[in-house]
């Protein structure tokens, strides 16, 4: 029974992974990747790690893949065209590496097939293991592995802060330089003569700009709350 479930889940994982690589439409690839994660969560369950299975679905399939699907939908990523391969020698390298992979898999199967080790049956009375339970993971995270836990959370915080810093847009102020077709550059960061077609904004307050542009009598917008 366990073997049947393992074969089903592993088949789903491998099949989804193959579909992920072979598909041309990027959204189908994303859905195949979600299938891979769900199959992996099932495999974690067969290894008596229910917490990890649930977290795999919540974090990977439920958050990271939603982000990937958003990006694909928003950026309207096109289907791949079939282009001829430019680096022809890569095919030979790929075949060689695939042969190595299958060789390793065969090696493991041969030695595992001949060994007398069996994975402990989690249903037997004396074999109840505490490793996968939520309470054990929580205890371990907050006692033995507290430093790696805190460092990992600081790492994630760094990633978020970095993303926010890179994505900030500088607001247009009256002494800024506007290079047509490019981003807004604050005055202190570039030399206008070097760029060539930087246009100076000639007014120094917003009211002067409104006068210059002829918007003096336009109705004012309500200030943002």
């Amino acid at each position, binding site marked *: 029974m366990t073997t049947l479930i393992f074969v089903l889940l592993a088949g789903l994982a491998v099949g989804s992974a193959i579909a992920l690589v072979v598909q041309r439409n990027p959204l189908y690839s994303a859905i195949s990747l979600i299938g891979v994660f769900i199959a992996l969560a099932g495999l974690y369950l067969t290894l008596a790690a*229910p917490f990890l299975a649930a*977290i795999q679905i919540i974090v990977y399939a439920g958050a990271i893949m939603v982000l990937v699907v958003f990006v694909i939908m928003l950026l309207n990523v096109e289907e791949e065209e079939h282009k001829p391969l430019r680096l022809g020698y890569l095919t030979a390298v790929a075949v060689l590496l695939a042969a190595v992979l299958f060789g390793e898999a065969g090696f493991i199967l041969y030695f595992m097939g001949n060994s007398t080790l069996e994975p402990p049956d989690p249903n037997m009375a004396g074999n109840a293991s505490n490793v996968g339970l*939520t309470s054990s993971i929580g205890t371990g995270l907050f006692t033995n592995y507290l430093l790696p836990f805190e460092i990992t959370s600081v790492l994630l915080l760094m990633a978020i802060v970095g993303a926010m810093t890179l994505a900030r847009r500088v607001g247009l102020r009256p002494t800024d330089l506007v290079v047509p077709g490019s981003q807004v550059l604050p005055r202190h960061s570039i030399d206008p003569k070097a760029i060539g077609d930087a246009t100076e904004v000639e007014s120094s307050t917003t009211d002067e700009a409104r006068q210059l542009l002829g918007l003096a009598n336009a109705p004012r917008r309500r200030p943002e709350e």
Partner: protein
Amino acid sequence: MEWLTNNIGPEGLKAIGQFIGINIAFVVVLMIVAYTVLAERRILALIQGRLGPNRVGYGGVLQPFADLLKFIFKEDIVPDKSTKFVYFLAPFIAIVGALMTIIVYPFGPEINLPFVGVIKLVVAQFDVGLLYVLAITSIGVYGIALAGWSSNNKYSLMGGLRASAQLISYELSLGLALVGVVLLSGTLDLYQIVEQQSGYWWLGGVVPIPRWNIFPQVFGFVIYLISAIAETNRVPFDLPEAETELVAGFHTEYSALKFALFFMAEYVNMFTVSMLAATLFFGGWNFPWLDLVVAPGGVLFALLSVVAFLLKVLFFLFLYIWLRGTLPRFRFDQLMNFGWKFLLPAAILNVVLTATVVFVIIYFRA
């Protein structure tokens, strides 16, 4: 019974029991959802000063069946340039994600039956039951996002993206609001959380107050309720399917039975969320002073407990419908502001305060 046990084995028996349980739960949920649709139309009508559908059957009780027949016989329009596979997949993800969560909820206490032994009225008891509910809720986002995208319609895409953004934003405060309950109960297993709410606190030694989690976790409950209403895309958070703005949002291009699946998925989500609220905060199947009156462990107690649980769930469904008839809807930027800038810090504050109080109690008692 012995013949069955000898031939099929205890595991097989348990599997058969779970299969029967799943079928019963499925039928009960679908019936309640069908009548929730009718109740919503009647109650909304009452709030708005008119009569709802009351022609089909006595007072309109056969209306859900009439609706089902209509959905089956409607013409199934598939937009021409849509991505067909994803277009067909999306309502299934929505409905499957909505229905998969009902197996972890405890409907009642243990019953001691003469032939079968002790059975718990829960289909599947995991020790990560709460995480399972959160995981399946996360998967349900895909139904909406993929539906919006695959319809090849800019209004559907906008509706789908807005709905997905709203869902993933409010999932955070939902999860954090539930952490308070987990801190108090010390377990993620829903059956045990309900069992732990079955005692009483004796006020002044005389008045028994039921040991429900709502009393220590009022703020957690309010945060949970707001997040849950946002998660199920209901008023006041239903901009993704606002009729006046986006035609019908992500399910604009869906007709007939696929639309019926989305519609049902929304109501099953409402039902699931109400069941979670009743289970985690209002004591599940514990009727307030029932076990001082009727003997626990018997069939009568179990029946009355199941009725109590369903009454609590129906109260929450009524609350949903009441809110729909009363409140205007949030604009999308107000919605996102509220979710990220107010609700998430409030949920974190709730976790910190609960953890502090629990720590102080454990530290000074032991």
